[in-house]
């Protein structure tokens, strides 16, 4: 394990994952949903986890919130939130940390809000769960928070039910609920996936403003590389339950070093590509987490394994190795091979 920490890191990270493994026993076999995930995140920064369905990104975020039932999920490794290990902590400790230390914005606000209670009642409950606050004071905080996330007429709308809000407004309610106890870490699981682009832009602006104000750490889970480029400081790319590449956002986008990341980038149409550019899809399907391929998990879809000697890709699991400043990748290609093989997509001419 090569845990390259930034040379400039003066503060200790607020969130640190060390070799987190989450697996579930199912009838078909053991699902290794997250397999040795390590990364860290400081306050005031945004880390994006990028990956497809089944890459382990949501499982990882739920482990940080301590949401996996102990009975069905087998969890090893450490999840340090402000120095406290969530994995080994008692259920009470984790519960008292939720909301204060870490909070989550879910993808689907309609199913995450209770349809029978007013938005205000749900927000007031969230405030009162964390201390001796009078109902009227909690209500004032709820209104202030709704106002802060950009809901007009907050004092009136606090009395309304979730179905009376539009999709974008509901997502703002979710953000308000996550932030109402001033958490230091906010996990946003696909916060804008269900939204239209114009609403997405509004929501991302709200998150950015609030981060500037409260200096919280944001863990953003998404598959939209555009959102990543515009909001993240650091990026973690996950595939088949593993971190396959991680580094600062500029490094990842200008010098991606892992064939899966290359594939992701060249399979997405870009508004700035010349028209007629053909997309380069990643062939095949994401792997089954029960029957992971031997060797590198990306091997069955990778077009570059011929460049690696002795068919290591088929037999050995690559480690996450440093490939640049604060930049690690899980691939057997040498750093010079990576540099030579990486697609140059920006000018559209050298794309394979």
């Amino acid at each position, binding site marked *: 394990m090569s845990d390259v920490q930034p040379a400039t890191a003066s503060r200790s990270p607020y969130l640190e994952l060390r070799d987190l493994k989450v697996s579930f026993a199912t009838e078909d076999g053991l699902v290794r949903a997250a397999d040795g995930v390590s990364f860290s995140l400081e306050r005031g920064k945004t880390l994006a986890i990028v990956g*497809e369905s089944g890459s382990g990104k949501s499982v990882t975020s739920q482990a940080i919130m301590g949401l996996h039932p102990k009975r069905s999920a087998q969890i090893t490794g450490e999840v340090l939130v402000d120095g406290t290990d969530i994995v080994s902590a008692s259920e009470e400790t984790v519960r008292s940390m939720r909301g204060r230390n870490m909070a989550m914005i879910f993808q689907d606000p309609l199913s995450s809000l209770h349809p029978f209670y007013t938005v205000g009642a749900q927000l007031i409950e969230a405030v009162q769960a964390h201390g001796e606050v009078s109902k009227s004071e909690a209500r004032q905080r709820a209104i202030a928070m709704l106002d802060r996330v950009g809901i007009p007429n907050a004092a009136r709308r606090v009395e309304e039910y979730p179905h009376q809000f539009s999709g974008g407004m509901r997502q703002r309610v979710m953000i308000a609920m996550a932030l109402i106890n001033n958490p230091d870490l906010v996990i946003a699981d696909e916060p804008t996936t269900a939204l239209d682009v114009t609403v997405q832009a509004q929501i991302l602006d709200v998150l950015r403003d609030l981060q500037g104000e409260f200096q919280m750490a944001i863990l953003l889970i998404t598959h939209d590389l*555009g959102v990543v480029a515009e909001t993240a400081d650091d990026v973690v790319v996950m595939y088949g339950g593993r971190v396959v590449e991680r580094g600062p956002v*500029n490094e990842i986008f200008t010098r991606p070093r892992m064939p899966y990341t290359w594939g992701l980038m060249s*399979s997405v149409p*870009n508004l*700035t590509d010349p028209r007629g550019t053909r997309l380069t899809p*990643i*062939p095949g399907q*994401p792997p089954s987490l029960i029957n992971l391929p031997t060797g590198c998990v990306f091997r069955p879809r990778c077009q570059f394994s011929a460049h690696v000697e002795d068919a290591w890709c088929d037999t050995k699991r690559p480690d996450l190795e440093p490939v640049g400043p604060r930049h690690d990748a899980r691939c057997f290609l040498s750093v010079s091979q990576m540099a030579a093989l990486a697609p140059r997509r920006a000018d559209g001419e050298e794309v394979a």
Partner: protein
Amino acid sequence: MSTSTSATATAGSQTGEPILRVTGLRKYFPIQSSFLRRTIGQVKAVDGVELEVFGSETLGVVGESGCGKSTIGRTMLKLLEPTEGTIQLAGKDITGFSRREMVPMRREASMIFQDPYSSLNPRHTVGKIVAAPFEVQGIEPPGGVKKAVQDLLDRVGLNPEHYNRFPAEFSGGQRQRIGIARALALHPKLIICDEPVSALDVSIQAQVVNLLEDLQNEFGLAYVVIAHDLSVIRHISDRIAVMYLGKVMELSDSDSLYLAPRHPYTKALLSAVPVPEPGGRGRRERIVLAGDLPSPANPPSGCVFRTRCWKAEDRCAAEVPALVEVEPGRKVACHFPEPAAGEVSFTPSQPNGTAPA
């Protein structure tokens, strides 16, 4: 109407009669009172749309949720009855056609749906699903149905041996391929694709987009692609119609639209798309639209976009802007359109992505 064919800018493809032409198309859904089922209002999902689709071209229809883009796709093929207007498919006015009269017309045009999980009958084998169009039409393809289906499966990149499997045995991307094979079965001239890739993983989206492009080249298909993802729409479309609240705001060839949007809504929409280049952060002019989409049951007077438009003036509330040609092949419904390409002040992010290394 006669000017449109000569005036369109896209090269080559738009000669002759369009495969599909809709004029003055409206689709209103009644709002009924819960008690007496009396109609107390109407949702104007599609409100006066004129569109033409020519052979071998892709017309993209883009807009946000609630703009009527899916309704228009379904109304075009009479899966929904239009409230007003005419629909001409392959030279025939199908507006008043009954279900039975529509059956032979369904050979001309078919549809691909968004959700590959709910658009395939889970109890039917893939073979039965893809063979359904032959059965409905009473067609015996040369070589038999089974061979035709296997050829189709092969063509869309599925294993023909999987003829007897059920949809649940396939991944999302493969199911979308099954839907494409079914749409392709009768060799239609037109396929309407409603959000064909939005339910798929990123790495799989590109596979399906490329397949759609290959099939278009091979069979000379025309597509109407309905999507909310502006990058996908731009990639796949020759011409694009931008919709807002049931109306077409701008109709243009794809390149010009993205280079210099003329309607303020198009401009706002494009500026909101996050670009996967970290260097572009903060350099672009981003227009964040205030507020929400108004209710289509009670759209604003005049221009429907005026409540969120930064250019709105008194005239916009009083007068509905017509969709008029502002440059060859380009129509905009706005009283105060943005400047044309030559006189632009808006710069999209650098095409060659010169990120500060």
